[in-house]
């Protein structure tokens, strides 16, 4: 049912459009209100936050943001988050893209096993991998390092990269590489010089989705880091833990700063993102 074709008089059509808009606006209000309210809290002073009844109009203050950005632990966590996310995504791309290409183009022994293993890697609960990882990393002195977090993150980013990229490679006509092979290029040369440049949108989609997952992860990071190596979600959970925390302005300001990069980044590449989401999950 692509696009309902309106039937009936133009008057009926107009009422229909009106109903649809009303429903959409209502949905938007419901879905965005929590976020808008939180951003609002982050722009209030401590007194305004707890005003009763709640303030709906006030002169915004940026003191919470200034305070958050001045915090050493926030800066440290921000850097940690950046490092582990970037590390996990680059590792997964470098390792996973050739595998995705091979799975899309060549028949080889163990192809189905690899397919199944990658899928289960993404689908099985992360805590199942985390427990033995914690014990093993501990034995090798790797816990509380950023390396351990990067390795842990590949359990979800590697399958995602392979899954998404395989879809993109399959959509690419074979003739392109085949003509390169005929011209005497090796498989590797054809892959690097012909295929990869054409597959950039796929790389962008895979990159963003993995970055988002890595940036948002909490479970792995909370177990595998300490105060020096913790990532932003771990710090946020520490902020909000306990009933004693009353610094709502500071908490919400840091929350907004955590989600802002992801949202901006996703919007900047929304076209790729939607393509990636649907190719990764629907197209199979």
């Amino acid at each position, binding site marked *: *049912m*692509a696009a309902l074709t309106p039937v009936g008089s133009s008057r009926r059509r107009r009422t229909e*459009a009106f109903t649809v*808009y009303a429903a959409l606006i209502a949905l938007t209000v419901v879905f965005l209100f929590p976020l808008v309210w939180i951003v609002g809290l982050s722009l209030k002073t401590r007194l305004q936050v707890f005003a009763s009844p709640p303030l709906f109009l006030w002169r915004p203050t940026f003191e919470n943001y200034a305070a958050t950005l001045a915090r050493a632990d926030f800066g440290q966590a921000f850097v940690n988050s950046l490092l582990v996310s970037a590390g996990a995504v680059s590792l997964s791309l470098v390792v996973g893209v050739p595998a995705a290409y091979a799975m899309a183009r060549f028949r080889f022994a163990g192809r189905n096993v690899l397919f*199944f293993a990658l899928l289960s890697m993404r689908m099985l*609960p992360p805590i199942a991998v985390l427990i033995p990882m*914690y014990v*093993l990393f501990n034995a090798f002195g790797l816990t509380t390092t950023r390396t351990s977090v990067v390795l842990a993150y590949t359990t979800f980013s590697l399958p995602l990269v392979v899954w998404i990229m395989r879809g993109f490679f399959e959509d690419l006509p074979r003739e392109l590489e085949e003509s390169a092979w005929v011209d005497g290029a090796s498989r590797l040369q054809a892959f690097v010089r012909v295929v990869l440049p054409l597959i950039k949108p796929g790389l962008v989609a895979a990159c963003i989705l993995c970055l988002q997952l890595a940036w948002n992860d909490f479970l792995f990071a909370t177990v595998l880091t300490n105060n020096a190596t913790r990532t932003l979600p771990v710090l946020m959970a520490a902020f*909000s833990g306990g009933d004693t925390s009353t610094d709502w302005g500071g908490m919400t300001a840091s929350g907004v700063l955590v989600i802002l990069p992801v949202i901006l980044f996703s919007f900047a590449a929304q076209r790729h993102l939607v393509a990636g989401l649907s190719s990764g999950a629907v197209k199979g």
Partner: protein
Amino acid sequence: MGGTTEAAASGRIARRPLIRGRRRMIWADRNFAGLAILPTTLLMLLVFGIPLLFSAWLSLEAWSPDQTLFGGTFAGRANYQDLLTDPEFTGSLILTLEYTAAVVAAELGVGLGIALLLNIDLPWIGLFRTVLIVPMMITPVVAAFCWKLLLDPDHGVINYFIRQHIVWLGQPETALLSVAVVNIWQNAPYVAILLLAGLRSLPHEPVEAAQIDGASRLQMFWHITLPLLRPYLLVALLLRMIFEFRSFDNVYVMTSGGPANATLVLSMYTYLASFVRFDLSLGSAAAWMMMLISLLMCGCFILLVRRREAN
């Protein structure tokens, strides 16, 4: 390519390296697929294969963190027996299944509604498509604590709107609902995107034929759109089941499993056993139980994908 042409141009002197290079190239070409998947295979063994084997072994041991890696004593099925006779675990298992079913049903319902609305071609619809997916991008931990503030009994805006003093996260009846709302809020848009892609790819003809036959909107939706959309609904259903089954972040931040275990989902139970009580053997056993259930769901998913690829 560059290398060989240069070598050919420089004539006889370069002939030997050229041949050797060719051979290497032919060897690499013949084994290209194997070489391409080698790094992935190794990395998977390192971060997935070996840990899982180790965890299986750990779940059959009585091991504590002060022992050496292989210093535990063999315990056989003891950990699994402990779990199955522990009312906290069985309660958590049932709770998780109920929670997953309810949250996924809500996500599919709301997601389908949003997708149907967004599928109608009207001016400005693109704006709604963009705005409505924002909750999906929010870091789950941040989303959870935002809702914690919204639901605060004394200063929360939700209690202000309904003019009541409800301790949402403090009583068993409302705590689970509150935790569920966060995930529904975040993931219904995701379901909507999946279903919208499905709606967009459906053929026009059946709907047009039904229109000519004078079918009502509801009839068309029920007898044409919904059956055609079934494969997409199934994929969304299974994906969401698999991911809701492992819910952790929202529970950890909002309730930590309380009050009175009302929100103690399996991930939380396993986390508490492993990283608070440090009974990593019991934790491994619980994790394996979770994996078996997820594998069942995953198997269904693979069957589905296979069937669609075969078509």
